[in-house]
């Protein structure tokens, strides 16, 4: 456990000192969301109707943007060899790195989403469901994305490959994330959709790190 926390702390420390990724993700999120009023036109009704989908799709792309680098730096400077040789299972290392990734991208995206919902004129009844859905959904995005990052490690054009690999797997999260918010704005209970998002997360927590660790060992061979 102390090893897990030490890893999370180091990744946060590195992100703070090197700057960049986390801030970049938020700026990308803001710009991508702001493009829609320009593209669709300033019609409040239309914007409010598409706001949930816009917020989810852009959050998904923003998460993807930072994933490519998840293991690359460790791979290039030899740290991945050392991490793979720790007494603790590599899956725990992966889980710690994914947790740090979520704290740096998913969590800020979740916290700022209601502000963007205001910009797009979303019905205020949907805000709690939006935040809850993002809290449950974005960790799954990080976990699935970590698997993609490990599989494309060392590949040429890893970024494009990663998107092709990971985006289809994001579809269930997107569907239920949007459905939860739509249910709330329509005056229905978002609970069932949130429960499915939670179930997806619970399935991803043991499965994704295990598969990611296997992919990383393959990359090290």
């Amino acid at each position, binding site marked *: 456990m*102390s*090893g897990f926390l*030490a*890893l999370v702390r*180091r990744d946060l*420390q*590195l992100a703070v*000192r*090197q700057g960049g990724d986390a801030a970049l993700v938020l700026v990308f999120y803001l710009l991508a969301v702001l493009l829609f009023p320009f593209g669709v036109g300033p019609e409040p009704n239309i914007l409010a109707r598409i706001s949930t989908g816009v917020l989810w799709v852009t959050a998904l792309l923003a998460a993807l943007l930072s994933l490519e680098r998840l293991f690359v730096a460790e791979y290039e*400077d*030899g*740290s991945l*060899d*050392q*991490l*793979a*040789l*720790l*007494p*603790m*299972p590599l899956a725990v290392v992966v889980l710690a790195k994914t947790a740090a990734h979520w704290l740096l991208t998913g969590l800020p995206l979740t916290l700022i989403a209601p502000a963007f919902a205001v910009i797009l004129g979303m019905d205020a009844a949907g805000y709690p469901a939006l935040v809850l859905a993002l809290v449950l959904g974005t960790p799954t995005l990080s976990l699935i994305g970590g698997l993609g990052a490990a599989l494309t490690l060392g590949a040429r054009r890893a970024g494009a490959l990663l998107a092709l690999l990971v985006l289809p797997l994001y579809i269930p999260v997107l569907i239920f994330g949007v459905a939860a918010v739509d249910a709330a704005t329509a005056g229905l209970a978002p609970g069932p959709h949130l429960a499915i998002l939670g179930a997806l997360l619970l399935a991803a927590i043991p499965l994704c790190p295990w598969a990611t660790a296997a992919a990383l*060992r393959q990359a*090290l*061979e």
Partner: protein
Amino acid sequence: MTVFAGAGLACLRGERAVFAGLGFGVAAGGVLLLRGANGSGKSSLLRCMAGLLSPVAGLLTWDDMPVGADAEAHRSRLRYLGHQDAVKSALTVAEDLTFWQRLHGARDPVAIGTALNRFGIAHLADLPARLLSAGQRRRVALARLLAAPAPLWLLDEPTNALDDDGVERFAAVVGEHRAGGGVVVLAAHGDPGVAGSILSLADYAPHSEVAP
């Protein structure tokens, strides 16, 4: 008595056989020097020993137990140092050592101080690693061996980038490790400043390329 041994080891890289039928044995307190031309498989053998690479044939044993039987125990008894130093530029030297020590399950600031002193980098403890020279980074990577002790050291050209003082310090540290019953396997081109039994990789080259 032999502690760490291998028999019938063979390794493939891509489609090419690097070595085959390789065997070795090291006693407690012993040093095994891997010698061979570029591409003869010294690094591959070390990675096999560490468990990063699976040999296509053969068996590695520690105390007569196959290391594959308990991979976790094997990982906790070994320290591997490859070509890369795995030093993060944004962390200070002391932070780097503390981090890896913690991951190996230890918490011992005294050992870190000693490790820094032994490699002559105590004055760099609070500098971020991006300000270090290649030789200083190497010393940090070597200091990790002492920060979290383990019986088996697998070192791939550890004295690269080290100056004479560094090589001397390294030899002294290896001497102490041997005196404590530790095992060292070391790949080197030049003189690593350490004596030991020699394993020549050329003897185990596959026979596909027969000289005319």
